[in-house]
Structure formats: structure tokens, C-alpha cells
């Protein structure tokens, strides 16, 4: 059994990276390995947007990640610096920056890059999807 970590740096609907990452996550778990966490960085932060509204016959990536969390308790960490500059924020950041809306909520968590480095140390393999 191995501990995997995933680094997702592509945006949904612009890049196939998150779709591949999600399939990889399910494959890892189906084979009895562990998934220590998923870290969203660069354009990957868009995966966390609760305002994405794709057509009904397309996968809602945000909800698909949330389901992964519900089923397997996989932490979903989002780089706060990459998120804020792209307009992704939770309620407390929205208040802090005087914004009228927020689009990030649990199970996604805003966190720092230190969390990515920690995930890389903890996991046997960190796999990048970009």
C-alpha cells in the first residue's frame, strides 16, 4: 500500500488535468492505496469554485471533488495566494477584502504552500496534473 498525494494545476473545462486527476484518485483508492490529500495550485484553484454551473450533461468538477472528500475523507487544500488573485475566496476572505460574494466553502480549505510541501513529504508519491 502506498500513500499518494495529488497536485492539481489545471482548471476544469480548460484543461483535462483535473479530470485525469479525479480518475487517478478513484483508481488509487480502488486499488487499496491511500490518498493523503489533493492540493490545488496555479489554475487548479478554479476546481474549488462553488459558482461553476456547467451544462447538466457535463461533470460538475467542484461537486465531484466534494464527493471524493465525502466518500474517503481526502483533504482538499487550495493555495490561498493563487486563489485570491484569481477571484476564489471563502466567506472570511470575502469579508476581509470587502467583496460581496464568496465562492469557496468546505470541504475545500484555503491554505498556504507549506501544506503542499508537507503533503509531498508525507506521501510516498506526489503526482502532478497540469
Amino acid at each position, binding site marked *: 500500500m502506498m500513500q499518494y498525494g495529488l*497536485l492539481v494545476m489545471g482548471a476544469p473545462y480548460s484543461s483535462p488535468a483535473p479530470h485525469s486527476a479525479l480518475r487517478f484518485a478513484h483508481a488509487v483508492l480502488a486499488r487499496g492505496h491511500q490518498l493523503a490529500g489533493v492540493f490545488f*495550485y*496555479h489554475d487548479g484553484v478554479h476546481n474549488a469554485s462553488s459558482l461553476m454551473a456547467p451544462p447538466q450533461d457535463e461533470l460538475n468538477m467542484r461537486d465531484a471533488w466534494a464527493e471524493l472528500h465525502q466518500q474517503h475523507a481526502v483533504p482538499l487544500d487550495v493555495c490561498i*495566494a*493563487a486563489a485570491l488573485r484569481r477571484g476564489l475566496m471563502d466567506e472570511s476572505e470575502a469579508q476581509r477584502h470587502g467583496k460581496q460574494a464568496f465562492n469557496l466553502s468546505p470541504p475545500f480549505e484555503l491554505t*498556504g*504552500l*507549506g501544506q*503542499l*510541501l508537507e503533503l*509531498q*513529504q508525507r506521501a510516498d508519491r*506526489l503526482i*502532478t496534473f*497540469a
Partner: protein
Amino acid sequence: MTTPNALLVIIRHAPHNSNWLREGLDAALVAAAFGQPVHLLFMGQGILALLKEQGSGAAGQKATLPTIDMLEMYDIEKLWVTEEALQGMHLTTDSLVEGVTLLAEQQVPGLLQQHSNILNF
């Protein structure tokens, strides 16, 4: 020279065309700030990040050269550049910032093997 726990950050994108360089350097700086030994490898268009006379890009875009200049302060002293990338762009080390180390592309697999932690931007 295997350093346990060292992080190799690979930069393959030029400044200003995307945020890859900035966010790659951010990851390197954070790791260094946490006390992790950090080495940088510039490949392909990534070597353009090291041009010493570069400007700040299109209007409103923040320059990345000041971040490159800051690396030494964070004890990030290993800046590897592949010879092939330099030759491919008809550049020499004279055009680059101080302190880069050249290596041949065929040495890259060995470099990767020496690092258990790698991030690719």
C-alpha cells in the same frame, strides 16, 4: 551530491506569458523559508527567467527579475541551466544573472534521481 529532503523546482516557462514562473518561484521561496534545501533547474523557455536585462513585461505586469535576485537571500544558490536550452536560443551565460551552473541535458536524469522531492512548473 544528494541532500536528503532537498526540493528541486523545475522551471520550464518564460516570464509574463503565464503565471507559471511566478508561482513556481513562490513555491521555491516558501520551501526555503521553511528551511528545506531548494535547488532550481531551468529548462527550455524557462531560462528566459534568468536574463539579466529583462524588463517588466507588458504594462501592469509585475517584473519577475527581482524575485530571481532574491533567491540568494533565501539560500537558494543552485541555479542549473541546460546547455541545450541556452544554445537553442543563441544565448550565452553572459546574458544571464550571476551564479548559474550549466549542465548537459543528459545529466538531467541523474539530477532528478538525486532529489526525492520535485515540483515542475
